[in-house]
């Protein structure tokens, strides 16, 4: 049924749903019985103390690891079965920035864009970098950048997204200054407006006003 509706309207983003999810790290049960959904246009803010399994949850949502119990579905289809159709509409930003020290800023961004089949024209990449105030550093090797600047390069990946997609962001505000955070707020808002969905973790209060983020608290059972 879901696949049929996908075929009718390829533009609309399927819902990511989680049912009875449990995650185990070694002997420790991080969380269990987790149920929620991420609908198009929604921003879900995952909160919890350190070590409560925020990153583990995001990795489960991205399909990088398998849950101890429960299931993650994409438009009603389990992630493993959804496969490439899911991955093509997923943007996963981990704690690590996935940048190579020896490549330039532009080359790093171009690699990520090409890898995920996004627009790799220099114009669109430079526009993304300009918005994050990195344009003057576009030919600099990544190793010469500060932590905050590296984070901006990783976030520039979000700015080249055009269609509605699912963003899974692990501490995207990490190492960003006030100006960078404001740009990210605006990017998240406009992404949600065009029907994209976001799941993110942040230890700082979220300043995104529109749409109001849905809070998911981990570890308060």
């Amino acid at each position: 049924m879901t696949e049929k509706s996908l075929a009718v309207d390829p533009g609309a983003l399927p819902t990511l749903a989680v049912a009875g999810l449990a995650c185990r790290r070694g002997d420790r049960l991080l969380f269990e019985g987790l149920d929620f959904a991420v609908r198009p246009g929604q921003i879900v803010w995952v909160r919890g103390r350190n070590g409560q399994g925020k990153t583990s949850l995001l990795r489960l949502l991205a399909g990088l690891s398998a849950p101890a119990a429960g299931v993650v579905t994409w438009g009603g289809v389990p992630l493993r079965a959804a496969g490439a159709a899911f991955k093509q509409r997923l943007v996963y930003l981990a704690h690590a920035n996935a940048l190579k020290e020896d490549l330039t800023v532009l080359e790093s961004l171009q690699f990520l864009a090409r890898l995920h089949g996004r627009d790799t024209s220099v114009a669109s990449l430079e526009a993304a970098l300009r918005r994050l105030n990195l344009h003057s550093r576009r030919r600099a090797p990544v190793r010469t950048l500060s932590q905050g600047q590296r984070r901006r390069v990783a976030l520039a990946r979000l700015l080249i997204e055009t269609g509605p997609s699912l963003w899974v962001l692990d501490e995207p505000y990490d190492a960003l200054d006030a100006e960078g955070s404001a740009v990210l707020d605006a990017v998240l808002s406009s992404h949600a407006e065009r029907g994209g969905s976001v799941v993110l973790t942040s230890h700082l209060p979220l300043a995104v006003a529109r749409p109001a983020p849905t809070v998911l608290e981990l570890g308060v059972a």
Partner: protein
Amino acid sequence: MSRAFKAVITRDLRLAARRRVEALLPLAFFGVAASLFPLGVGPEPQTLRIIAPGVLWVCALLSTMLSVTQLYAGDHADGSLEQMLLSGEAGLLIALAKALAHWLVTGLPLVLIAPLFGLMFDMSVAGIAMLTLTLLLGTPILSLLAGLGAALTLGLRSSAVLLILLVLPLCIPALIFGAGGVVAVESGLSARGHLSLLGALLIFTVLLAPPATAAALSIATE
């Protein structure tokens, strides 16, 4: 060719070009190791001719192993590997691309420089040609197996030791048939049997190593 496949190869070649000294280390090791044998064994042309195929093949094998530990470790540490696995393309294409890039950086230069060392060991023209041909067939096998070993030991402590223990035994058939083919030609026999087996081994590895590598990678990133 798929976009992710091309993207990974282009990036790896570019990275190798940015770190030329590191990228050329296996080649330098091959040169030094092969040059030490005449010094150690003695300059007797007859002896050198006899040991040449084995020496050159073993040096090629060992120098390929030099760069193996770093094959996936860097991408794993900085998060690039996760991004590759989330690209929406089959993991085996990524594994194939990484192995091909590894071969282009370490294997191909060995194939190209081997004739020079063949001359140094006073090998016959036919022997040198066969050495180049067997290395051309054999070094891709080494790169594919190296990729598999690197993926299997990813994120483990003392992975370098494990990797050598794991990969070297798998490389032995390639070594035997590769060096054996050259020995056969040098002693005036046909090397067709050796070449066929080496070719079969290459096909077998191309078909089986990338899916196994992909599976190991997705376990390692879990």
